């Protein structure tokens, strides 16, 4: 679409959203579950087009933001005590642990390799063998299948020095908790995650909580279209799950990807930064894949990690507060010196507010 058409369509959608919102006097609050949506909303300057009573709050869908400090501490201790080469997606490099980040670890002589695909970790393992390579397993349904496929390949090839430190999470359990919150009127559902789990998997939002959901792509117009559907369903009190990202997401998702995940992982409990322990919201390595678990292969004593009590990341991850309400925001907490992961993750809410500001 050319820029003029795009702008015209956006204005028309924004106007429609405004008209629907004007039918209700109270605030309408929708949660963008996914961090990539958070960034896209800010990058496109969408908030400047919203009516005054429409609010988008950020949810727990940034894998880096919901990873506990303890995970970074454990990774660094494994790296230090077992001379392991850490392989990670770039987002984690600057996330602060209790005694620095992986960037500090690297500046002190540790090895940190940034990869785009987990498959690259197999090549790194071959190159540095027999030195252990620990892939930092952070992610949701979007990234987990490729990690599962990587481990299948590593098992088939007999790669012995590759490990994964697991902190995988699945989206439905926290979404159920958030859906019970009365001040949230619906959910902008994650495009990439939904491509795996399918739009049908959210039916419980309507059945159990009477909340609407719209699966959205990541272009500005995708988001505006999904928001138009959300405000209409919320105002008409006719909740449903609408798939506004049909070019990528099918109602049944991607069964092949889910099968590979089921082969390698089993459901476990997981601890979420800001939300605490959520039963059944994590994944653990099972069967022959259990030997890839870095936490079991390289046990380290991880001291109790304390978050700065002034850091509001937890409230921000649940949509209870916006970053500008945090006293640390932009002062003591900046992308170069982050206090919490929400400021440093490329999908973090605080990072989005800091980077794109309010213009």
């Amino acid at each position, binding site marked *: 679409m050319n*820029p003029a058409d*795009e*702008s015209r*369509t*956006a*204005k028309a959608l924004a106007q429609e959203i405004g008209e629907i919102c004007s039918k209700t006097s109270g605030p309408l609050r929708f949660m963008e579950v996914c961090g*990539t949506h958070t960034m896209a909303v*800010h*990058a*496109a*300057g*969408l*908030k*400047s*087009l919203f009516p005054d009573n429409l609010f988008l709050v950020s949810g727990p869908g940034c*894998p*880096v933001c919901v990873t506990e400090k303890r995970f970074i501490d454990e990774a660094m201790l494994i790296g230090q005590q077992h001379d392991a080469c850490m392989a990670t*997606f*770039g*987002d*984690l*490099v*600057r996330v602060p642990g209790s005694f620095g980040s992986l*960037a*500090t670890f*690297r*500046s*002190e002589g540790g090895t940190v*390799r*940034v*990869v*785009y*695909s987990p*498959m*690259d970790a197999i090549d790194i393992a071959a190159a540095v063998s027999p030195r252990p390579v620990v892939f930092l397993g*952070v*992610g*949701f349904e*979007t*990234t987990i299948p490729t990690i599962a496929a990587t481990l299948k390949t590593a098992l088939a090839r007999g790669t012995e020095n590759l490990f994964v430190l697991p902190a995988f999470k699945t989206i439905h359990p926290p979404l159920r908790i958030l859906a019970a919150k009365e001040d949230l009127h619906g959910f902008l559902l994650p495009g*990439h995650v939904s491509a795996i789990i399918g739009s049908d998997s959210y039916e419980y939002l309507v059945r159990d909580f009477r909340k609407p959901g719209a699966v959205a792509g990541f272009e*500005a*117009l995708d988001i*505006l279209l999904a928001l138009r559907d959300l405000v209409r369903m919320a105002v008409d009190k006719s909740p449903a799950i609408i798939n506004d990202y049909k070019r990528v997401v099918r109602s049944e998702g991607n069964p092949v990807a889910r099968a590979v995940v089921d082969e390698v992982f089993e459901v476990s409990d997981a601890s979420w930064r800001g939300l605490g322990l959520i039963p059944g919201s994590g994944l653990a390595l099972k069967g022959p894949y259990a030997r890839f678990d870095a936490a079991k292969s390289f046990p380290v004593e991880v001291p109790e990690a304390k978050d700065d009590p002034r850091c509001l990341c937890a409230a921000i991850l649940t949509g209870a507060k916006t970053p500008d309400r945090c006293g640390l925001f932009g*002062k*003591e907490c*900046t*992308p*170069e*010196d982050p206090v919490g992961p929400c400021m440093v*993750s*490329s*999908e973090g809410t605080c990072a989005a507010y*800091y*980077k*794109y*500001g*309010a*213009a």
Partner: protein
Amino acid sequence: MARKPDTRILLGHGGGGRMTGRLIREMILPKLDRGQLGALPDSVVLSGLGAAIAYTTDSFVVSPIFFPGGDIGSLAVHGTCNDLACSAARPLFLSLGLILEEGFPMDQLETILRSISRAADEAGVEIVTGDTKVVPKGSADGIFINTSGIGQINGSVRPSPEKIAETDLILVSGPVGNHGMAVMLSRAEFSFDFDLKSDSASVWPVVERLMELGDGLRFLRDPTRGGLAATLNEIAHMTGKEIRVDEAAIPLDESVSSASEILGIDPLQAANEGKIIAVIASDKGQEALDLLKECPIARGASIIGEITSTNLSRVVMTTRIGGSRVVSEPSGELLPRIC
């Protein structure tokens, strides 16, 4: 409350964004600035030497050393020539400092030297002095190059930040982000196959044409590390004004745009090595574009925004869909995202 002091150098200190700025302002300048260094020009115009002489230096530590569209050798020539060009100085002489790691393949060195020679001939500069050091294996990453350059300023055009005024226009000489993205994608970690080349080139031909605008040419800078975003923020801070840019007017190659989407890296923050940002008088926009029409390395030149009357030292973008948002200064090193 005070910021925690940095206790070690991190890669982010070399990223060209906020951390680099802090290192220069808080650590280097207080000790070394005796009057001319503090303005941090791309190159300094030396006084007291008769004809106007510009002088600059730059070091190159790019990884990988060979990338689509160039290598560390051509980059070392272009980078220094472009710093001179931004002071409206025709690049004339270069020094060449080579720091080689023990074990570095001789055939790669030969390729790099040929590339330096070719780039220097194309840019019209002569390598007139140099130095070679070899360091033990592990002390460097193959090869580092330092080049210093001397250029001559002819005529009366002297772009400088003091000349920037309200309603002036911002011109970019072509699509942005190509160098940064090409280097990032050619790193071994990323197995993508994009048709994407670095824009590494000497920008003097562009500057020479823009100088025909006379006083209408207010300021020049090459948006290298930190990309367009860093340079625009620098101009906003220098003038104390708001800069408003139009997203739809910012030229971007399709391949850069796709790569940035996949890696999650803002192309406005990715480095350029053959582009110029020029601030020009409000009535000179079309004339500037006409001057650049026949200049091959200014393919896709565009007026992307203007200096406004607001005193806010920030850069605001009107997005493609008509929204507004801030274009922030990059911070730390650019890292690809998780999903």
